[in-house]
């Protein structure tokens, strides 16, 4: 998480993946993840094929492997959780390196790791090939309630401004010799958070004034419309369709 680095998530490029309309990409990624999640965990080869599919997409989008792998680190807390599963799960047990591990726990860990990683990788590919602004337009096109899209767009617009204010407050604290070291300093942090809230809320009120001063009456004027041709849709859905074939094979084999 890092609102301050929001723009660094996106890798500028002109690949075919970058060029797809945002809502087709969003829908495709969602469909892909749904397919992955509904694949039986016993079909290990299927997950291998999914990974190959994503690698292909990354190749077409010219997203370097290092970038993708670094972003996968967000998963780490859950890897830790998954590693614990074989120890604590129920049922039949096997001996591995002198430790008694649960069979179903091992399957569970594999299940979470495989599906979680594929899900994260797909989302990372989406975020690195689609600009923030486009993602919002895509969500709007996918019929997310307009008010929700507006809230999200204000959040993204002011995320940087507010994190910046927070950073300035920290610098101000530190230049007066304060450094948060333990529980005793929570009060100071909380005061900063309180001040940050007041500033954020007041800014919200000022933004609202600026909006109504320019004719806002409750709904955002339509400025951009994103549209997708049939070809673009089918191009975007090549990924989930291929995944679906793999998934069906996984169920039948």
């Amino acid at each position: 998480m890092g609102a301050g680095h929001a723009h660094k998530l996106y890798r500028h490029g002109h690949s075919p993946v970058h060029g797809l309309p945002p809502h087709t990409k969003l829908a495709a990624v969602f469909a892909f993840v749904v397919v992955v999640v509904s694949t039986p965990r016993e079909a290990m080869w299927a997950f291998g094929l999914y990974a190959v599919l994503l690698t292909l997409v990354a190749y077409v989008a010219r997203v370097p492997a290092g970038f993708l792998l670094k972003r996968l680190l967000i998963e780490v807390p859950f890897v830790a959780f998954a590693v614990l599963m074989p120890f604590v799960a129920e049922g039949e047990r096997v001996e591995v390196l002198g430790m008694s591990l649960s069979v179903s726990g091992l399957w569970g860990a594999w299940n979470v790791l495989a599906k979680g990683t594929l899900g994260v990788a797909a989302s990372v590919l989406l975020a690195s090939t689609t600009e923030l602004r486009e993602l919002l337009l895509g969500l709007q096109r996918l019929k997310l309630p307009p008010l929700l899209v507006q809230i999200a767009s204000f959040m993204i617009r002011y995320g940087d401004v507010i994190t910046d204010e927070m950073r300035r407050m920290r610098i101000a604290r530190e230049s007066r010799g304060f450094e948060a070291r333990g529980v005793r300093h929570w009060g100071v942090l909380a005061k900063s958070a309180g001040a940050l809230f007041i500033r954020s809320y007041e800014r919200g009120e000022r933004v609202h004034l600026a909006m109504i001063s320019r004719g806002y009456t409750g709904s955002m004027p339509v400025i951009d419309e994103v549209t997708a041709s049939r070809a673009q849709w089918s191009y975007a859905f090549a990924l989930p369709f291929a995944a679906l074939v793999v998934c069906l094979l996984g169920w039948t084999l």
Partner: protein
Amino acid sequence: MHVPDGFIDAPISAATGVVAAAAVAVSLRGARRELDERTAPLAGLVAAFIFAVQMLNFPVAAGTSGHLLGGALAAILVGPYTGVLCVSVVLLMQGILFADGGLTALGVNITCMAIVTTVVAYAVFRALVKVLPRSRRSITAATFVAALLSVPAAALAFTLLYAVGGTTDISIGKVATAMVGVHILIGIGEATITALTVGAVVAVRPDLVYGARDLRRRLQLRVNGALVDAPAPEPARTAPVAARTSRRALWLTGLATSLVLAGFVSFYASSNPDGLEKVAADQGIDEKAEEHAAADSPLADYGVKDITDARLSGGLAGVIGVGVTAVAGTGVFRAVRRRRTTQDVSPTSTSV
């Protein structure tokens, strides 16, 4: 704790997705009614605030630190509807942009972290504020308890979802122990920071704290009386509020009593373990043999016996049950008796 894809099975993910969508829809309507056309900029800014605050790490001890979840904070500062919206939007953006939390698990994440935290925190908060004497200190205390309960409540909600739709058959007792145990610790941090933050805001701009609106009206009147001639319309404006308060007082006291009973009494005095506890108790006996296997794992750090914790989780389940019921009740109550239109908003913050 953002749930990734593949953690909860497809039917439950879909079901929570529906629950989350419904709750967001209700919140959109509720927020619109409260904030009017100011909803988008204000909720957006508060969402950005929650997003920023989640990055504000507070040091717990040498080397470790925690961060706020923000559900309780949002609920108390801007109200439950806007709170649900803000936290949901934060989760949505974290899922899409940062891959933090799976896309198919979005329903689970929103249900646990946006809806349960906000609703539980707000219900507990309102109930306590009604019961406690009207003062700033009460607001802070109520905030503390509300935030403290909201975090393990979310953990418990997750445990319940896991019990129904988990993809690995770990005993529910264990999941509950781990989740609730850890989250009570997190909850203490969350509660302290939330209470101090709300306290700081109440001290400077009490009018901005949604949960303390009643308190503000009284304060304002007294301040006006002391400094300038009290404006004539002021008593007229407070009168209906007072009437409404007394009407609500009855059932809110009832709510508080039942919360206390459900929470604390079942925690201390349960001699007959109910279903959940029994499972956990059985597991506790079964798993003596494995405990050393997990001795090196972080789970061992929780260092609590299954039975005690099952009681705790039983108690919390009680609290949550009452909380959820009360909120459902409030919904009906409000639907039946439409709230009067929100008063005209004055942009006092921009005044010279």
